[in-house]
């Protein structure tokens, strides 16, 4: 479970100070699915980075299962990321020189598994997103949707507690978008993940059980009973 209390993030832009997040209070329960929306530069991605332990708040606390990520050392934070948090990015962020199988395996490298186990788990993850037959292909040989599915397999192969997706359908056309959203929802349900997603897409936002909107660093959360 996430608990964010008074999370503030300030950046310096020249002589100006910008509050990307301004005293955010937010609780996200285990297995929740939260969609974050808001205008560009509103602080969505910054919030996602705080949740993923990729950045630290200027003030406040970001607690995951009782551990304040803001106070962890770099190595412990790296460990939290490697074991508990899966990321899906808008631009897929696959390593261009590695095959789909090897890209998925990169998420298991920090867990120091045996090579055989690593390969088996990566192959199973690719199979679960319907890409078993494309495991030997390089990202450049895959379509955008396939690349994002590889990225999802990479995020889930380590069996994380949390899946963070930053506009996962932002670079895809409509049919691909639906396909990826279907995969993500299936995974969320099957694995019982806490799923937090940033999106600009109103169609996706409308279906979310909880919708958070960030404007100028401030957050408002709305429960969507209909979903």
């Amino acid at each position, binding site marked *: 479970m996430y608990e964010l209390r008074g999370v503030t993030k300030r950046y310096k832009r020249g002589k100006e100070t910008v509050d990307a997040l301004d005293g955010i209070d937010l609780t996200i329960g285990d297995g929740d699915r939260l969609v974050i929306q808001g205008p560009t530069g509103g602080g969505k*991605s910054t919030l996602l*980075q705080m949740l*993923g332990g*990729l*950045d630290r708040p200027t003030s406040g606390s970001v607690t995951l299962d009782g551990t304040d990520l803001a106070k962890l050392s*770099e*190595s412990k934070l*790296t*460990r939290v*990321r*490697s*074991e508990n948090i899966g*990321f899906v*990015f*808008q*631009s897929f*962020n696959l*390593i*261009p*020189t*590695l095959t789909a199988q*090897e890209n998925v*395996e*990169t*998420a298991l*490298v*920090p*867990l120091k598994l045996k090579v055989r186990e690593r390969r088996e788990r990566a192959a199973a993850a690719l199979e679960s997103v319907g890409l078993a037959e494309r495991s030997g292909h390089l990202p450049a040989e895959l379509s955008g949707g396939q690349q994002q599915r590889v990225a999802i397999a*990479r995020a889930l192969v*380590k069996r994380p507690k949390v899946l963070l997706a*930053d506009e996962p359908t932002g670079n895809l056309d409509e049919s691909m978008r639906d396909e990826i959203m279907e995969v993500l929802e299936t995974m969320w349900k099957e694995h019982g993940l806490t799923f937090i997603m940033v999106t600009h897409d109103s169609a996706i936002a409308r279906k979310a059980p909880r919708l958070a909107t960030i404007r100028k660093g401030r957050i408002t959360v709305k429960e969507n009973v209909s979903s």
Partner: protein
Amino acid sequence: MFFTYLRRELRRRRKAALVVASGLALGIALVIVVSSVSSGMEKAQGKVLQSLYGLGTDMTVTKAAQAQSSTGERPRFRFDARGSDSDEEQSSDRVMVQGFQTLATSTVSKVAGQQGVADAVGGLSLQVIKVSGQFRRGEFQQDQNGGTSQRGGQGGPPQGTVEGGGADFDVNNYSVYGTDVTKPELGPLTSSKVTKGRTFTSSEANARVVVADASYAKEKKLALGDKVTVKGVKYKVIGIATPESGDAAANLYIPLKQAQTLSDSKNKVTTIYVKASDSQQIDAVKSTIRKNIPGTTVTTSADLADTVSGSLSTASDLASNVGKWLSIAVLVAAFLVAGLLTSSAVSRRVREFGTLKALGWKSGRVTRQVVGEAVVNGLVGGALGIALGLAGAYAVTAVSPTLQAELGSTGGGPMSGPGGMGGGPGREAAGKALEVALTAPVAVGTIVLAVGLAVAGGLIAGAFGGWRASRLRPADALRRVE
């Protein structure tokens, strides 16, 4: 994963990798060629010195020659005129100590007893001048109005002219070296190799045997078993010696006692050949000898090397100065280019490394990946450089440019003038020019150095890139590209 990722990454950036590797290769090849050529120079210089010193000699001890008076030691030959019809050949030879003042043989033991001296032997350098030919009287021809021709003439002085008669002499000038036959490993004969027959045995300390220099033997048509006469004494040729390089120390080598007898120099030597116990302590041994045995000149191979001039010296200076600095400059440039290209490659891979860090890769692992790629790049450059360097060294050896070494001809060094280097006859006062072929032997140490440079180049390049990668914060990395 490490190697797969590394291999694929290098393949993807093969153009940049090739530029880095080529730069390193050029630097490393230069280092190999310069090192091997320098080594070849040293070898050539060693050959030159060996031709004077002989193998195993670290220094020589001599005593400066005295200025010759106008009459003093100059050889004189007297011949009586024979009758005009006489075919009798007259011959006279003079054996002279050559070049230096002699030292007592007791000095040899004294030198041998000095601290740091492993062994010392004496040698006596002689010059033999043999004049042989005919000297006939002329015949007196009386004027026609004076009657018959007659020899000498009696009574009143006859009128007439002397016709015919005269001299026809051949001068044979050669060098003889008296050698200590009990210590064949040291002394003048070590600069040559006995290629026919044998060398002296220790039982031949006063035997009438001779080892002839190959060129001299060829000139005089000497063969094993032939007899050579020196000042009326016949010596049997037991061996033919060929110099390892350059000229031989002498035309003939005979046992030291025989040389002393021939030149009336009993218990005298001209040169003491010294071998030091430790080659690193030669200067200290030189000082000890000079201090304890005053009036002598001690010349080491280093002193001798300083007197080497000519193209060998110029090339050696070029190799050690220009070559060395050029290699260093190219290497530094190659290291910098490698570092900057690696650093630039990291900049282009910010998203990649940010993603890996987001996935839980530690900074150390990311840095290792970058350094690993740079080191492999360096090793590829090293392999190319070694191949290029070996080819260069092989080419130098194949071409074998001839270098000329001039020893002591400038008059300023310890070689020149009286009291200079005491290698062998004819080489103490006058300059000596030798031609040596340059080779470029590549030592194992040079290859090890090349591999070390390749790894160092890779590590330096990796350090540039690794430092950047390690400082990369995942949020910044992802923010910069999203």
